[in-house]
């Protein structure tokens, strides 16, 4: 069945939410959240501490075919998912589904377990490294399910995903399971992505390397939801969890694009006192902060809040008073981690508060601007942030589709080409964010405004900002790199990409190995 973004979805994969029918299609619908299995603890209680991860797995009654979950706040420095999965493997448990908020280069060990048939299902908001290669090669028994951060919480709350055991790495915890993201050896600032897991999983295990006296409050993960606590030597590599400070790019191309993004923002009426803003962690996205500062000062305005993944430049704006509050779901550097722990105007929120489309209003819905990166953008403004030009899974929708759908003005910033690959192309390999949610594309070779936003085009004209069409940008790219041949695929679907409302936006098939004839 062909969906709203023109992708052909095999009928046998279409589930209860159907295929993608457009942004906001389910708006206003009501539903009953799925029930949560709880356990009554009436009697006086001692510590929830158990001796090992293995003991916790045993006590949770883990069996073949169960689903376990992990969060990705430790990013490339995560030890937790691999430690737990190694125990599960050693215990002979098979047919495991991993429902993670994201998976990446820290999880090569899980790639091996897919090849060994121990892990047979993957549900995630990002997939990179060897894991992506193994799944792309068709070695996972069932197609991986890729969801946005908001879509993941919705799937949990609607019961599309049932987590049997949530293993939550926590920088600090007390022996009753009250867990925080600061005050330990491997601080990650916030635990936003683990909050839904703690509320909805049948069993919740906290894994920490810094046990602190009770009460560990205010807790990101509350002890009332936690079954067991395990203390290990190290939950992650602090150097890879949070780099010292995200360095501002020196690359003149990235700076030029960042400056153009700021120009576009300032040309819209949304750029007024109290505006709200989210930006990605990529070089040009991050550098936008630097160009916003003088524009805000010149106009004598401040930002009400900055949302999402946080890095040093945003913290600097908070400390200088140009930003009134930070609403944080993830921290990318130590400056952000420190601020999350210390600054009273820096707030931790859950992934549901951040981006879930199936609650009564997430923060993304109140965004004026979001600046996002892309691997590819096509002439329908569809964005791909998941598959490489070779068709291999190597990316993460993350909060991209959520923020794009929620913001009044969504700006994608990307170079026109990367090496010989045209970033602006005829058809993206995979649609991860529908073009109807994208308003402006800023490249190093020019700006294109989505024809669905004549208002923005008029504002740019009024501000004397040149812009062109997305087709012209694509033609320019193709004139330099040549017209790419379409990828050739096998029939087998290796990943299903859900829109944030649960409908199917696209599928990724197994790539055919290329042969020179």
């Amino acid at each position, binding site marked *: 069945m062909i969906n709203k973004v023109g992708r052909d979805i095999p009928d046998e994969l279409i589930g209860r939410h159907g295929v993608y029918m457009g942004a906001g299609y389910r708006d206003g619908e009501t539903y009953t959240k799925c029930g949560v299995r709880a356990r009554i603890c009436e009697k006086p209680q001692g510590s929830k501490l158990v001796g090992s991860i293995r003991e916790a797995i045993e006590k949770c009654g883990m069996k073949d075919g169960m689903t376990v979950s992990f969060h990705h706040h430790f990013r490339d420095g995560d030890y937790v998912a691999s430690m737990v999965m190694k125990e599960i493997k050693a215990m002979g448990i098979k047919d495991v589904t991993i429902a993670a908020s994201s998976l990446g280069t820290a999880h090569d060990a899980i790639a091996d377990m897919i090849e060994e048939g121990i892990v047979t299902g993957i549900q995630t908001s990002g997939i990179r490294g060897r894991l992506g290669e193994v799944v792309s090669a068709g070695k996972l028994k069932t197609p991986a399910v890729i969801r946005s951060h908001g879509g993941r919480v919705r799937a949990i709350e609607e019961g599309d995903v049932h987590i049997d055991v949530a293993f939550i790495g926590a920088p600090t915890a007390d022996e009753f399971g009250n867990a925080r993201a600061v005050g330990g050896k491997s601080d990650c600032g916030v635990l936003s992505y683990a909050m839904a897991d703690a509320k909805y999983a049948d069993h919740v295990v906290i894994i920490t390397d810094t046990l602190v006296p009770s009460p560990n409050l205010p807790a990101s993960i509350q002890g009332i939801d936690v079954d067991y606590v395990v203390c290990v030597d190290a939950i992650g590599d602090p150097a890879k969890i949070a780099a010292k400070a995200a360095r501002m790019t020196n690359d003149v191309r990235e700076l030029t694009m960042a400056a153009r993004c700021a120009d576009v923002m300032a040309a819209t009426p949304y750029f007024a006192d109290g505006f709200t803003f989210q930006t990605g962690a990529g070089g040009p996205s991050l550098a936008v902060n630097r160009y916003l500062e003088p524009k805000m000062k010149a106009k004598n305005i401040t930002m009400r809040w900055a949302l999402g993944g946080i890095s040093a430049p945003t913290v600097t704006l908070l400390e200088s008073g140009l930003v009134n509050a930070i609403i944080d779901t993830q921290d990318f550097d130590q400056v952000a981690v420190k601020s999350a722990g210390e600054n009273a105007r820096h707030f931790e929120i859950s992934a549901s508060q951040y981006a879930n489309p199936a609650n009564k209003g997430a923060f993304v819905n109140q965004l004026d601007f979001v600046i996002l990166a892309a691997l590819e953008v096509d002439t329908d403004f569809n964005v791909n942030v998941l598959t490489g*030009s*070779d*068709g291999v899974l190597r990316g993460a929708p993350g909060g991209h589709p959520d923020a794009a759908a929620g913001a009044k003005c969504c700006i994608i910033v990307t170079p026109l080409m990367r*090496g*010989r*690959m045209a970033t602006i192309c005829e058809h993206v390999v995979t649609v991860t964010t529908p073009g109807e949610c994208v308003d402006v594309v800023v490249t190093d070779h020019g700006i294109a405004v989505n024809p669905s936003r004549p208002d923005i085009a008029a504002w740019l004209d009024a501000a004397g900002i040149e812009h062109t069409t997305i087709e012209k940008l694509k033609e320019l790219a193709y004139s*330099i*790199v*040549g017209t*790419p*041949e379409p*990828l*050739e695929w096998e029939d087998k679907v290796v990943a299903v990409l859900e829109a944030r409302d649960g409908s199917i936006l696209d599928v990724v098939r197994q*790539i055919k190995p*290329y042969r*020179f004839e």
Partner: protein
Amino acid sequence: MQLINRAMAGTLESSDAQISIAPGKDGIVLHIQSTVQNQYGRAIKQSVLDTLSKLGIENAEVDVNDRGALECTLRARVECAAYRSAGIEAGIPWEEM
């Protein structure tokens, strides 16, 4: 053009291509590997064959290790390798390139 020695041109840096060329007997024996072969495999092969044909090379062993080079870079690397193989440094017939 008369190829004499095995010669190389180009690097393995991103956006470049390394070409190795040697005299051959049996037509053009071409091996290509490329980081962008899924989308540009045919185009790369065509560019290399075109360039060799323009240079009047009918028998050669050619290895291409492409790292996403643009067509103009591919052509430049093939020509450079060929002229190195032929031992010609100056007096290049530029108008025929």
